[in-house]
């Protein structure tokens, strides 16, 4: 099963290396990882998607906790949470196909963010299924390039994943 971990870390040099190194050393698989600042200065948040059995995930969480720069680890898959990912996708788009593309983009509530004589860049936000669905639709037009941010997630409701 896939698990989404929210990992609060001290914003110090090498902290990403420590986390990534831990995963490779212990044979855990990172499916994706997104890192960014939080509302607290000096604290970054990593959102890590990892696949594994309950026992593996328990070890991942415990081992992450042992890293001195890791402040808190929460498994967001165990609780109601919202998850999003952003994808930019560059497709072949000549004048004849633009309106078809536009229609798909609107259906998926995406955005066209760049247009050139032969291509367009589309921005889509959503969950995994949505990304896969829109990719599938664009294959026939010709996908030139894709970039994804990795998933980020928050608990639903008023509760937060805080340092304490």
């Amino acid at each position, binding site marked *: 099963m896939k698990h989404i971990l929210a990992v609060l870390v*001290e914003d110090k040099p*090498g902290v990403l*290396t420590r986390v990534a*190194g831990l995963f490779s*050393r212990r044979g855990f698989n990172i499916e994706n990882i997104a890192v960014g600042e939080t509302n607290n200065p000096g604290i970054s948040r990593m959102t890590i998607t990892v696949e594994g059995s309950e026992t593996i995930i328990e070890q991942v969480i415990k081992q992450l906790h*042992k890293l*001195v720069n*890791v402040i808190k680890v929460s498994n967001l898959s165990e609780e109601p949470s919202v998850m999003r990912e952003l994808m930019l996708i560059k497709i072949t788009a000549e004048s004849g196909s633009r309106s078809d593309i536009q229609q798909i983009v609107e259906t998926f509530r995406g955005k066209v963010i760049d247009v050139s004589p032969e291509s367009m860049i589309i921005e889509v936000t959503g969950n995994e299924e949505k990304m896969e669905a829109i990719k599938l639709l664009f294959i026939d037009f010709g996908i030139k390039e894709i970039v994804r941010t990795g998933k980020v997630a928050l608990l639903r409701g008023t509760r937060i994943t805080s340092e304490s």
Partner: protein
Amino acid sequence: MKKKMMKGSAMILSALKEEGVNVVFGYPGGAVLPLYDHLFDSNLKHLLVRHEQAAVHAADGYARVTGQPGVVFATSGPGATNLVTGIANAYMDSVPLVLITGQVPRAFIGTDAFQEADITGITMPITKHNYLVKDADQLPSILSEAFYLASTGRRGPVLIDVPKDIFDQEGHFIYNRKCEIPGYKPTYDGHVGQISRAVKAIKNAQRPVIFGGGGLIRAGASEVLSKLVEKARIPVILSLMGLGAYPGDIDLYLGMPGMHGSITANYALSEADLIIAAGVRFDDRVTGKLESFANNAKIIHIDIDPAEIGKNVKIDIPIVGDVRVVLEALFQKLQPGHTVEWLRQIENWKINNPMPGVLKSSGGTVKPQFVIRELSRLSKEETVVATDVGQHQMWAAQHFIIRKPCTFLTSGGLGTMGYGFPAAIGARLAAPESNVVCITGDGSFQMNIQELATAVNNRLDIIIAVINNGYLGMVRQWQDMFYNKRYSHTVLEGNPDFVRLAEAYGAKGLRAKNEEETTAVIKQALSEKGPVVIDFVVEPEENVYPMVAPNCPINDIIVGSDQL
């Protein structure tokens, strides 16, 4: 709290003073010149080794005996990379160390400068934590964090990499031994509810056994363990790392479990209905085939590191906490169960399954086990034993009677050949009142034999007992048992004459080839001053038994070569 301006080098020496450090093990070089220049005027004792690896092992031996962090200085590049094996060794066995390495000046970092190596990158997976200092002002807090991290929670090595120019940079020195690290809050007290469950399980158990490890020693839990054992009449099994946590000559002690453990210990673990595991990590050398390990038992697991609980073996009652604190709490509430019948069963096992093999030679030669037994018999009670790795290590664990914690130093997790002799050097400085005996092999000794110079130069009273069988014995044993006796590169041809080699270094060299000589040279060595190398020429193809073959159930025991 004092605050003043100081150079980086001075800050380091001041911090060591604040931390009560008495001795540093090290080796100078280009990038640590400014630090060694300051050291020249300091009254801090520095032990100069002959190879950086020996500095870490010596600091490790010192730390295992005293319980205080061992401190190491080394230079950048090769100086730092030579530490790596020793750091990995300390990490696996949870030994507190603070290692200070020089680095190329800040402006040169990342340029592949002379003697540059990314030692923080290299040691990330084998240190509890490490630091690259970017400014002298960071040094005081980094140093106090390093000592705090190394010596609390699950102990371990911490490395501080200091660029050369920072040793000379002035900064504010404010030293505060109390530090707050947001991501580091070890749990010391066990969960009350879990402790109650454990108490109940102990009361209801018919066949309980305590399985203790190195955690008992690091936590100083020996005393409370003895009280608890006496009150509850529960037999004790100790892992290699735990030897000495409970006296090895008391009836309730069953020996070491696992691959070369005692038959009784392995039977007891297999038949127990309750295992109280304290400060252990269920290493594969202990459990054998995991699926058949302790199938009849409920397991209580007490450990300071939550990640150890449930890592290898399924646990029924996990208790995260300091082993001493938790055992104390258990002792207070303990209601002894009925173990009389179980103890009778164990006594029967003990009588019917002594350590196998004839330990006396049939004539003219000497068995390695006999040597260890004589060393054990003739040494005074206050003796620290340091071993290397291989057959002699297992014989030492089986036949040397270890009575006290912090007196058996061995590379348990990493299995580092070359550990024993430098560890004995560290132990010598840590325990001036004790005898120090290094039990080594002809293979292992040669991995750090250059330290004879260190031992002679510092007039260190150490007995180095070389169990010389002319083989890389343990590997040869596996080739004997599992590879049709094809002794591929395990014959150590070209070994030096250890007696003359010792003499060349200025140490005493002795040799024994039979039982009478063995007893005589041990007595002589115990009366000598300075390092004494004893070359025990033992029966070359003796194997270590009992043995559980890898990935077999631990009650499936080979007791001798006729069983193969």
